[in-house]
């Protein structure tokens, strides 16, 4: 298992009158090289949950395993450095964390902080620029001259320069235009497939969940209320709607046709899956000119 949560509870300001339990008794696991999407409303505990993954918040109760690391309420901060290198966190609007004069220096900052020589860190920075779809010609430029989407790529390159095995993404496409969004999601998919990175994605984009995730966790009021493959989770569309969560467009469309008597072998989640099933039951030649 790449990640497992065992009865994890986290309480903000525990032991004070201000105590507030943000996540409660959460258990789940993600296999090696998995791709987990976490969905749920604003305030449902998603962000608190992912911040347990590199122990920015340590659990108030329960245990977390990330590959060979274990975090418990008694884990001390001195033990956490290797874990923080192992789990790369991309927060919302990561471009707001850029600060260096040049793009190369910004990306090289993390590795140097973890003890890499300047020359090695610079070489690594140039390599990471290529990975995120920019190229070495950007290295000497100021990150602040770039467009919003490019700045975000630089920030992500800075996280990747730490060579994490788990990449945690908190709404990584928020505020990007559709083209930028697609390119960004394709980048994570490539890292997942080609480099075997375990991905944890917090998102409101159900289309992305349908297309990329292998597992889905649904959070509500600090509790894990559903966990499974996208197809299982989205099959219960009434429950999702009652929880004000969307169902992917293709699934909505298929369900309306199902109400009119069309049968599906399984619930399609993307336009491609829907088209496959339509083609499989398409009447032989001659009927497509209605």
């Amino acid at each position, binding site marked *: 298992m790449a990640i497992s949560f065992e009865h994890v509870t986290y309480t903000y300001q525990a032991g004070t009158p201000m105590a507030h339990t943000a996540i409660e008794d959460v258990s789940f696991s993600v296999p090696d090289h998995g791709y987990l999407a976490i969905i749920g*409303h*604003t*305030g449902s505990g998603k962000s608190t949950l992912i911040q347990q993954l590199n122990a920015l918040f340590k659990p108030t109760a329960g245990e977390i395993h990330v590959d060979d690391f274990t975090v418990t309420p008694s884990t001390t901060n001195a033990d956490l450095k290797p874990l923080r290198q192992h789990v790369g966190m991309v927060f919302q609007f990561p471009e707001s964390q850029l600060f260096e004069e040049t793009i190369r220096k910004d990306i090289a900052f993390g590795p140097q902080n973890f003890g890499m020589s300047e020359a090695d860190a610079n070489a690594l920075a140039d390599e990471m620029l290529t990975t995120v779809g920019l190229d070495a010609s950007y290295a000497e430029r100021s990150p602040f001259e770039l*467009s*919003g*989407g490019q700045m975000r790529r630089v920030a992500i390159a800075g996280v990747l320069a730490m060579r994490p095995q788990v990449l945690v993404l908190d709404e990584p496409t*928020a*505020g990007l*235009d*559709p*083209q*930028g969004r697609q390119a960004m999601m394709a980048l994570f998919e490539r890292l997942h497939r080609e480099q075997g990175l375990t991905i944890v994605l917090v998102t*409101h984009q*159900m289309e992305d969940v349908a297309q990329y995730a292998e597992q889905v966790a649904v959070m509500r009021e600090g509790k894990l209320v559903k966990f499974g493959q996208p197809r299982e989770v989205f099959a219960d569309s009434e429950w999702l709607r009652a929880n*004000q969560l*969307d169902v992917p*467009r*293709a699934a909505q*469309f298929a369900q*309306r*046709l199902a109400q*009119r*008597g*069309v049968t599906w072998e399984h619930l399609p989640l993307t*336009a*491609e899956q*829907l*088209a*496959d099933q*339509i*083609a499989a*039951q*398409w*009447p032989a030649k001659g*009927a*497509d000119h*209605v």
Partner: protein
Amino acid sequence: MANIIEVKHLSYKYGEEQQPALKDVSFDVHAGEWLAIVGHNGSGKSTLAKSLDGLLPFTEGTVTVDGVQLTPETVWDVRSKIGMIFQNPDNQFVGATVEDDVAFGLENRQTPRSAMLPRVKAALAEVGMAEFAQREPSSLSGGQKQRVALAGIVAIAPEILILDEATSMLDPQGRSDMLALVRQLRERQHLTVISITHDIDEAAGADRILVIDDGQLIEEAQPATIFARGEGLVEMGLDLPFTAKLKQALQQRGITPPAGYQTTAEMEEWLWQSLSNT
């Protein structure tokens, strides 16, 4: 329909840049319509919106708002007719509390306090945020913040509302709530709405769409016409509507759907008839 905004041969160049950000753009906005302006990042659409409000001094051309030609002398007059909401709600808060923030526009217009209080209250009620009047803006969610921004606009009752990607940072629920609210306000206050957007649903609700690319106005049409462009939509900075994606996928599998753009209901009807026709 009368024109509430007339833009003629507008050009704009940022400082040292070689290429103008806007090149000879001309169009009209009809009173009471919902006009969407689309284009990919860097196409010039936000520059255009800022030019309408006199936030950027354009180099050539004229902008006339509600009969008043925009000049350095009339800029305050023109701004009193236009309310703008930007992408990031955190960049547009000035008040320490929600109600202070809503009152800001009225204070600038030197509205007497006795008139201001009921207007702030009414504006907050209008957007469903009355109970948050005393709250700190930073304690609100993104969607709530944009609603407060909208209340600030309701309070000054402009003729025109410009949304500059105002829903792009919201979650899906926040986005649809916000759009529903704008639609409501538009009815009640006879607002003209100009929305600069990448969101296909927001564009679909417009009466008309302008497409900007490379600083130029390249197209002006109704949503159905624009949505029939298929892959071309991505170049325009929009996503493909679901029906267009499905059509593409069906065509790849040798199935030929009807030409043109279909709404989801039309597509559903066509598929149901085809599939039950065995």
